[in-house]
């Protein structure tokens, strides 16, 4: 009997200052292409999920949002656990938003697993008149802090809105060892299912 293949999980996070458009970027990416699961409401969701099929292989991309804990910079270190990739998002129409980014890079460096893939995103390109950060500055910052990619987006107009997510997945998949289960997430076999839904493994197997 063949069991259906369990999809590989990719965990991605969004971080960055308040009001940089993290959630709208996430919604644009997930809801534009993927019908959200009926059981999850848009509010009070721990993470959004997108199923991807790449080279005939199934992936579950789990996208975690900050839940407002970025406002006073009180994200939990557990938020960063097991992350494969991080999107660091600022608002190109807000200089302070950009200037806070080194601290977000440092926090990611401190808490995220080693070798996590970082992508810098300057959001809100629709606000052309209010632009306060040059694209070249973003480019430079990305280089300085080892982000593998920089892009400017608009969740509002869809301008490049998918690109950072796609780039993240591509890079995770093409980086040897990035999905190595021993590197970050638990070896599932070691984790005890406390829900009681998993069959209690008795001494002998019934099969």
């Amino acid at each position, binding site marked *: 009997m063949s069991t259906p293949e369990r999809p590989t999980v990719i965990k991605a996070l969004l971080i960055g200052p308040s009001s940089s458009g993290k959630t709208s970027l996430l919604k644009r990416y997930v809801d534009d292409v993927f019908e959200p699961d009926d059981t999850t*409401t848009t*509010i*009070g*969701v*721990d993470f959004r999920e997108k199923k991807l099929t790449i080279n005939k292989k199934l992936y579950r991309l789990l996208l975690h949002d900050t*839940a*407002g*804990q970025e*406002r*006073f*910079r*009180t994200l*939990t*270190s*557990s*938020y960063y*656990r097991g992350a494969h990739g991080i999107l660091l998002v600022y608002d190109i129409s807000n200089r302070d938003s950009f200037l806070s980014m080194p601290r977000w890079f440092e926090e990611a460096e*401190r808490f995220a697993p080693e070798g996590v893939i970082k992508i810098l995103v300057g959001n809100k390109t629709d606000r052309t008149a209010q632009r306060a950060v040059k694209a070249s500055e973003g480019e430079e910052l990305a280089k300085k802090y080892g982000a593998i990619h920089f892009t400017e987006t608009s969740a509002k107009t869809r301008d490049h809105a998918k690109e950072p997510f796609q780039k993240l997945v591509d890079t995770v998949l093409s980086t040897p060892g990035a999905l190595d289960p021993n590197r970050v997430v*638990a070896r599932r*076999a*070691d*984790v*005890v*299912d*406390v*829900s*009681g839904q*998993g069959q*209690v*493994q*008795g*001494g002998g197997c019934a099969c």
Partner: protein
Amino acid sequence: MSIEALDQTVWDTVITGTGLRESLLAAALARAGKKVLHLDRNPFYGDEYAALSLDELEAWAQDAKIRPSHIESVQYRTHPVPENLGLKKSRSYTLSLSPGILYAASPILSLLVKGNLHESLEFLKVGGWFVYDAVTVSSDPLKRVPNSREDIFNDKTLDPRTKRVVVRALKSMVGLEGGGSETGSTLDNVSLQQYLERPPFRLPSSIIAAFTSLTLSHNRPNEIPFDEAERKIKRHFDSLGRFGAGFSAVIGRYGSGSELVQVLCRAAAVTGNAVYVLANGIVEIQEADPASGSTLTTPTQPTEQAIRLCLNSGDLIQTRHIVGTSSNLPTEASSIQSSSGNTGVWMSIYVVSSSLKQTLRTDDPPTAAGAIIYIPAESIQIDNCSNINPIYVAVHGSDTGECPEGQSVLYVSMKDTGSNEVELLDAAVKSLLQNLSPEEDITNSTPGHILLSVSFRTLVDLAPSTPKFRDNVHVLPRHAPMIETPDFLVEQTMEIYEKIVGSRVGFLEKASSQEPETPEEMSG
């Protein structure tokens, strides 16, 4: 950092401190639609439940020396070791102030499952209980505490008569296979030791030690009332096998309690109803009147029941309820805390250069990440004194994410007896390292070294005492997370929840279709 707009709301509850009860309450209240402002005076989550890197732990130790609290006599010591065996970088460690195990039957676990939060956590198996025999050094000084009749009958060190008696004693205590426990009156004032020593059982001290280890009590077997011991032992057997064969308890990866707290705080934040501010606390409850000592809110206040608070940051906040332990509340509110029933326990965290795999081997999958070792009283000798009380060692292997591979973290505790505790704990760990193999293969015997030790004395409330309420300031009783995460924490939390919400129904349950705080849509 500017605390913008915290003063724009009248909060339903301001919670100070991000310990387990506080965080559980925050998540439950936020899910019930209450507006929560959750503070912690530290720049990290967890308070007494925190898990820290080496640098953070060193800073915590410094701070604990100068800040009056229930944690005393803190010593942070690194130990010289041969090259290449030393400590790795600070961030490779997540050392926990709350390493406590959770029994499978713990109401905390069932709440997490009901609240659909268990998937954010990784629970690992506590493989077994051992009694350590430091006195008669045999080939294997670790003796596994039997979990079943089969274990007992397979034990080659026991004669057939003892086997039968042990099974009978077990039956009488946990009601295995219908063997009802003896009834009340004759067992009043009987200790666990007396019960097992006297007829009909007449069990040897090694078996008594095994039973005692399951109580997780820091007292000697002749000091543990039988009914208390029976309850605890029953708890162990009730939990056994629930999540898999041969084990009764789990620990959370990355510091157990600490991770639990953070997941609860995130769950609170995810609702949109809770706001988190760290490195801030309550300095003054303005309506408090220490002179009269009667009420905190004056009935003439225009804002119904609102309490005004002043925070460290200088912000003035309004709230209907305040929750915290006495150490997180200004003195006039916390002075009502009773201080009776305290006992001191020494706790020491050791990082050692041995994976102590021998303690983590189990017959059934999954691999264990933790184990409990019980060292009986008077078995560790230094100079001319020995441990008056038993010592518990909770072993956390590197699978917990608390230390690099090849090392392990030992959380060691013993009752305060007035002298030499730290030396005795050190000696206990050294003895373990000397006699236990770092590998599963017990013939390999390169002894490990202590790399770091952090010891402190902590005051714990012996008996679970009810939180005292003074109007809407809810003071949580003092509690020090130790080897076990006790069930009564849930009761204490729910009691306060009920005071605030009016009922316990739906505690921590996710409001499935409810739209929290939709902007007012009032027409005409």
